[in-house]
């Protein structure tokens, strides 16, 4: 027997990363814009979906993957809006991974879908480490959670390209300082966008919706480009 040391240098999450890139290729081929929506439980992920779907219905084709520890309550809420929704139950697992998405995709008809929203499990820590193949990571922080959250959960705020600050209609009833949230979000992630919204009243939704629409049309163009020559459609 001999004692040996093997240099390795491998990313521990490489298996997940590989599946995430497979998902990404699939999304890009179909020209679908995909977001990974994260927040703590109760911040308003499903309410955001409901209002966003209502506002964008008719302008684009939306599908949703719902991640939850248990129950299909959220998927049913979303299906009522007339969009495709598939539920993933993680049975206690604290995050979605790329493999779960790959399996869920088999239950969705991706043809003609413009926007796929993946609602992650409510958690500000674990989902941050697992890429799903999405184009953008988006998070919601509700003002009732407190303005110290960016400092306490830096990775999540660092990696999300959009921060939606929700429940601003409740600001008068909290000690939450919006300025503090904006400042710490900017320090952690200078390139990130911040939208202040209320899913209950619809306040502040216009910039968020136009951000989504711009992204969707960008990805639609890619789909058209892949299917035809660059000059097609000009006649």
């Amino acid at each position, binding site marked *: 027997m001999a004692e*040996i040391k*093997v240099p*390795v240098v491998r990313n521990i999450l490489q298996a997940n990363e590989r599946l995430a890139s497979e998902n990404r290729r699939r999304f890009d081929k179909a020209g679908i814009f995909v977001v990974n929506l994260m927040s703590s439980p109760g911040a308003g992920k499903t309410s955001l979906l409901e209002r966003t779907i209502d506002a964008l219905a008719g302008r684009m084709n939306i599908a949703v993957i719902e991640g939850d520890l248990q129950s299909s309550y959220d998927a049913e809420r979303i299906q009522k809006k007339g969009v495709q929704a598939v539920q993933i139950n993680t049975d206690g697992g604290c995050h979605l991974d790329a493999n779960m998405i790959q399996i869920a995709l088999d239950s969705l008809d991706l043809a003609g879908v413009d926007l796929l929203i993946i609602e992650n499990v409510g958690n500000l820590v*674990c989902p941050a480490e697992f890429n799903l193949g999405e184009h953008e990571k988006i998070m919601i922080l509700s003002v009732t959670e407190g303005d110290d959250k960016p400092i306490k959960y*830096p*990775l999540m705020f*660092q990696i999300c390209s959009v921060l939606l600050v929700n429940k601003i209609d409740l600001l008068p009833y909290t000690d939450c300082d919006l300025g503090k949230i904006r400042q710490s979000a900017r320090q952690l992630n*200078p390139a990130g966008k911040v939208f202040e919204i209320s899913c209950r009243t619809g306040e502040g939704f216009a910039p968020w919706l136009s951000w989504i629409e711009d992204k969707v049309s960008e990805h639609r163009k890619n789909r058209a480009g892949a299917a035809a020559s660059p000059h097609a459609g000009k006649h």
Partner: protein
Amino acid sequence: MHELSIAQSLLDIIVDESNRHRLGRINKVRLRIGELAAVVPESLRFCFDLVSRDTAASGALLEIETVGVTARCDKCDFSFEVQDRVFECPKCGQPVFEMLSGRELYVMSIEGETGEEDG
């Protein structure tokens, strides 16, 4: 928490590498983990003990090297250690978008014994 998934992925890599290099028993695994990675070392060790039970890596020591958060300013090309998670260039005050280190989750090396007692 998600340290369990990470411990499982880590074990998969160790098993793969030890098959490739014919290691019979694993004594030590060196890891590099970024300060911004959402991984708690104690929790990872605990989960690794669970998933590695009855494998060649059972009882292996996880030696974890923590990597600080560093970034580079694209305006003045200055590289620096990020203090208090503020991504701002200490030289010119510009916001900084390029992170150089801090999110690592790497297996760096595996130490073990070649399983020659099998023949």
